[in-house]
């Protein structure tokens, strides 16, 4: 025996580890044991191999690395004795998973053991195969498993059946081999075999429609009979659980029947009686019985409509909902959620009870209930339900507030019957849980306020009032500050007073006070402070009497350590001091923000949109120089009419307005904007990161020409540039950008996209029997490397495609950016479009090439189409 081996028994090692008082002590013991085991491994010690491996398993469970023992598993499995194999297989399943290459080496041993004369060794091999086999192994060993489905001992048959499930999930095209053997297993009497066979059939139906058809036709009646026999069987002690014979088999049979009955009236008809019997006869005082009832309700909801049964099922759920057991209430809520799609009216009847559950002391139940309430809300009941939820917002604990706030905001937005109600509710939420409100939500509120011109006065007064009483809710303060800045004059003059409002007297200095509080409060973050700065600038023009005071406040930020604030305060100060003539025009009220664009951008930022862009083409920090060059050129050449201008989106205004938002996580990422890194701060500062340079330059030139003060303002701009040397940072041409953002609002925005580049013929990039994809190309003038591709997908079948997802992959010399598709549902014979941008770094040398993958669901079945597009026009 080697000198390092401690030779301790497993039991002694466990004891030693357990007696450790500190983590360090434990580590020391484990390290010593591991060293001994390693030594034994390198000496190829055979006598203690199984003991060492057992120790390793224990060490593994404690979370220590044990990869060095992996080969030992294989050796033990390859040995001949049952005890060694038993430990070896156990360790194999514990220490390895299907993604490890080592696993392939065990295939041969597995094959031998599957053909072993000892049934327990076959059992071990089946167990290992079922738990961790990879697709390759599944393919290699499927014939063995198939054969074992007919083995003489039922315990092997059941293991083989479950193993088959793993195999068909790994390699779905093997499914057809298992259909017949699975069907014959259904006729067995042995419960273990029956349970596993039913399970196998269920999974076969999920992967193969052929199997589904087969079982539906051949086995439905048999299964119904089996279930009937079970339900009527007398007491059998071996399978009895709380007075019910084998609830596990009950449940599996119901599950399979659900799949067979779904979408097939005949099969559904066949099982109606037995479902009614189960639903009425099973005792519901024990968990086992409730589990069966729950499954039965699920089946009734899924199979083809039978009015009577549905009523029965909803009644069971109603009973569940009023149960005192939390588990039962949880599953009731869960099932009611599914029932919503079947019979929303019936679920609405339980609304009051469900609302109570939102206030439950159990977080799991609260969450489920809230999800359900969310589904229950419609136009007719949104007001009372929202009132309930907002009322509950006060009482709920912090953890739950976030989820609750999200849901309320989403409901209010979705169903608000009128704007004033929306604004009211949002105000309540902001005052109660403003810190949980997501950025895009309060952005949306600002957009709505901006659009509701008759409510400007009402909103700003309400916000002013709210911000006087509540100061710790960040997003409330932001919205309030924005509105005071924009509508300060309305606030002071009580313009547009509604009847329902209480009169309020706000002086000009009160309004400035409110903003000053926001900027001076130490808990305010950068965004709030920057918004307050802008508000102050705006107020300076609205309230000439407070101008001097405002200048003071702005000047105080000149020494701010935050670059953004410092720069803005210097710039604003400069505007206040030197440019009285343009100030009024500069700080005019924002043009109405475009709701459609904003919601479009929000939709684009949803996580469901999958972009396979290979690089962050737009935000690379090195890119600063390039986009910055364009505005300068435009500044100098104000008459240039042919500035390339993609249609500027109104939604950008908001972002530009808030262009100070440095909190990277909270910025609503638009689809064209990959996640920001720290390096982008500069880009953000200059606000050129998010909007294409062409856009800001074009609006800048518009403004300048509209002001009709060309030379003067150009000089001004240059003056500003030199005033902010810090920000310039070697990129001086870029620094006019912030000013342009200020000015951004003036530009008459729509500018048509001029087709300057050569035209390319469109092509059919992909076509199958069910789908056609065609590409239209266009180039941005001055950027020959980049091609804009408009892909149009046309559904050639009479079926609707759901969850449509287009993906594309390109070689390294190309960069691809995908915008979200216009919809993820492709109607029958309809079409949707999706635009993408390809940048060819080898432009002129290599032509485009692309591999595509299209996934969608047709009639609930997933379909995947793949292809390669080689026929791009040469010079793209």
């Amino acid at each position, binding site marked *: 025996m080697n000198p390092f081996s401690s030779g301790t028994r497993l*039991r002694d090692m*466990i004891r030693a580890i357990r007696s450790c008082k500190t983590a360090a002590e434990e580590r020391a013991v484990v390290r010593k044991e591991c060293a001994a085991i390693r030594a034994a491994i390198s000496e190829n010690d055979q006598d203690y191999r199984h003991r060492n491996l057992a120790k390793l*398993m224990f060490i593994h*469970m404690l*979370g220590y*690395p044990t990869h060095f023992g992996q080969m030992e598993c294989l050796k033990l499995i390859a040995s001949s004795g*049952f*005890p060694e194999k*038993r430990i070896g297989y*156990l360790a194999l*399943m*514990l220490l390895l*998973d*299907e*993604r490890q290459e080592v696993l392939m080496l065990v295939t041969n041993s597995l094959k031998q053991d599957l053909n072993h004369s000892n049934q*327990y060794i076959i059992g071990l091999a089946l167990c290992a195969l079922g*738990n961790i086999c990879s*697709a*390759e192994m599944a393919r290699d060993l499927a014939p063995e498993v198939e054969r074992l489905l007919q083995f003489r001992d039922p315990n092997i048959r059941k*293991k083989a059946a*479950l*193993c088959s*499930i*793993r195999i068909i999930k*790994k390699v*779905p095209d093997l499914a057809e081999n298992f259909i017949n053997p699975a069907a014959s297993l259904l006729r067995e009497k042995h419960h*273990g075999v029956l*349970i596993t066979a039913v*399970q196998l059939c269920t999974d076969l139906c999920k992967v193969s429609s052929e199997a589904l058809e087969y079982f539906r036709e051949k086995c439905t009646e048999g299964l119904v009979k089996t279930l009937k026999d079970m339900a009527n069987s007398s007491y059998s002690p*071996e*399978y009895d*659980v709380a007075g019910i014979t084998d*609830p*596990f*088999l009950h*449940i*599996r049979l119901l599950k399979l029947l659900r799949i067979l009955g779904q979408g097939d009236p005949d099969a559904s008809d066949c099982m109606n009686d037995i479902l009614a019997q189960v639903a009425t006869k099973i005792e519901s005082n024990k*968990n*086992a019985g*409730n*589990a069966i009832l*729950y499954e039965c309700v699920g089946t009734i909801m899924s199979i083809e409509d039978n009015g009577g049964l549905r009523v029965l099922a909803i009644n069971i759920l109603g009973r569940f909902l009023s149960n005192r057991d*939390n*588990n*039962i*209430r*949880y*599953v009731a809520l869960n099932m009611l959620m599914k029932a919503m799609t079947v019979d929303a009216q019936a679920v609405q009847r339980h609304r009051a009870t469900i609302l109570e559950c939102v206030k439950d*002391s*159990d*977080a*799991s139940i609260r969450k489920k209930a809230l999800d359900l309430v969310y589904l229950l809300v419609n136009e007719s009941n949104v007001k009372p339900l929202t009132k309930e939820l907002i009322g509950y917002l006060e009482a709920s604990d912090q953890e739950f507030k976030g989820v609750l706030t999200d849901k309320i905001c989403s409901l209010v937005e979705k169903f608000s019957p009128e704007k004033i109600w929306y604004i009211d509710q949002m105000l309540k939420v902001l005052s109660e849980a403003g810190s949980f409100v997501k950025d895009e939500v309060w952005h949306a509120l600002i957009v709505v306020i901006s659009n509701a011109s008759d409510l400007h006065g009402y909103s700003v007064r309400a916000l002013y009032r709210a911000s006087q009483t509540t100061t710790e809710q960040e997003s409330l303060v932001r919205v309030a500050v924005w509105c005071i800045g924009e509508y300060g004059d309305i606030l002071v003059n009580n313009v547009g007073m509604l009847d329902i409002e209480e009169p309020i007297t706000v002086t000009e200095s009160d309004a400035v006070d409110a903003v000053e509080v926001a900027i001076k409060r130490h808990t305010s973050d950068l965004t709030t402070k920057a918004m307050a700065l802008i508000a102050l600038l705006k107020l300076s023009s609205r309230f000439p009497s407070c101008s001097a005071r405002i200048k003071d406040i702005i000047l105080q930020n000149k020494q701010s350590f935050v670059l953004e604030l410092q720069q803005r305060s210097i710039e604003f100060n400069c505007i206040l001091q030197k440019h009285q003539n343009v100030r009024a025009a500069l700080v005019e009220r924002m043009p109405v923000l475009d709701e459609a664009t904003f919601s479009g951008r929000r939709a684009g930022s949803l996580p469901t949109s999958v972009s*396979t862009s*290979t690089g962050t083409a737009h935000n690379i920090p090195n890119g600063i120089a390039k986009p910055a060059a364009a505005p300068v050129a435009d500044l100098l050449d104000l008459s240039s009419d042919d500035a390339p201008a993609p249609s500027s989106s109104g939604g950008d205004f908001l972002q530009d307005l808030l262009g100070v938002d440095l909190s990277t996580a909270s910025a609503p990422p638009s689809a064209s904007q990959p996640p920001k890194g720290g390096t982008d701060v500069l880009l953000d500062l200059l606000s050129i990161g998010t909007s294409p340079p062409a856009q800001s330059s074009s609006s800048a030139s518009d403004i300048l020409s509209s002001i009709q003060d060309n030379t003067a303002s150009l000089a001004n701009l240059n003056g500003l540039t030199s005033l902010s040397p810090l920000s310039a940072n070697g990129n001086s041409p870029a620094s006019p950008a912030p000013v342009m953002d200020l000015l951004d609002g003036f530009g008459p925005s729509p500018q048509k996209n001029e087709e300057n580049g050569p035209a390319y013929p469109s092509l059919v990039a992909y076509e199958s029997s069910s789908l056609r994809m065609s590409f239209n190309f266009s180039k941005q003038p001055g950027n020959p490397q980049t091609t804009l591709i408009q892909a149009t997908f046309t559904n050639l079948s009479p079926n609707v495609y759901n969850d449509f*997802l287009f*993906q594309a*992959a390109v070689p390294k010399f190309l960069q691809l950016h995908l915008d979200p598709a216009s919809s993820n549902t492709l109607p029958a014979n309809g079409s949707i479009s999706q635009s993408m941008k390809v940048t060819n770094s080898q432009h002129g040398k290599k032509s485009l090439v692309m591999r595509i993958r299209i996934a969608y669901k047709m009639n609930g079945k*997933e*379909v*995947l189409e793949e292809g390669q597009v080689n026929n791009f026009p040469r010079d793209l």
Partner: protein
Amino acid sequence: MRHNPEEAQRHQKSESGIPAFEAPENPDFPFRLLSRMIHFVLLISRQGKVRLTKWYSPYSQKERTKVIRELGGVILSRGPKLCNFVDWRGFKVVYKRYASLYFCMCIDQDDNELEVLEIIHHFVEILDRYFGSVCELDLIFNFHKAYYILDELLLAGELQESSKKTVARLIAAQDSLVETAKEQASSISNIIAQATK
């Protein structure tokens, strides 16, 4: 047709020049395409120590540690008398406490939670019968036996046997196989020892 990750990967290796697809996936837990009833079984003590883990879906070592830490935090902090289900990362974890041990099983959203509770109880009853009023120490020192029992009860994340008696019988038969082999080995070594005396 279902999307099969391994298949796709092999496919892509053969064609050079074009990189692999970026499949939409959960960055934390990739490869989670297959649905199965039970994704993993976890036994944690009240102190958060792991007593048994069984993974039926592929989780890397790092993920496993993370899962255990995360779930331990969630489950151990839940008060008594609350429901036995926790929503977790789009999955559901069904747990039940027996004495000082928490038995947890992670299942898909549409699976029957109540049944899984029943399976947990089934497992505990078999353990109880095997060890004779089982306690945490039994499971620590005989952890491998607990695994053997679990392997007779679940396979590929699915239930394989609803009869406690059958499981007990199968385990007993295999235990006796091991005993016989041991006796043989010791008798052989005795013979050798005597022969070489």
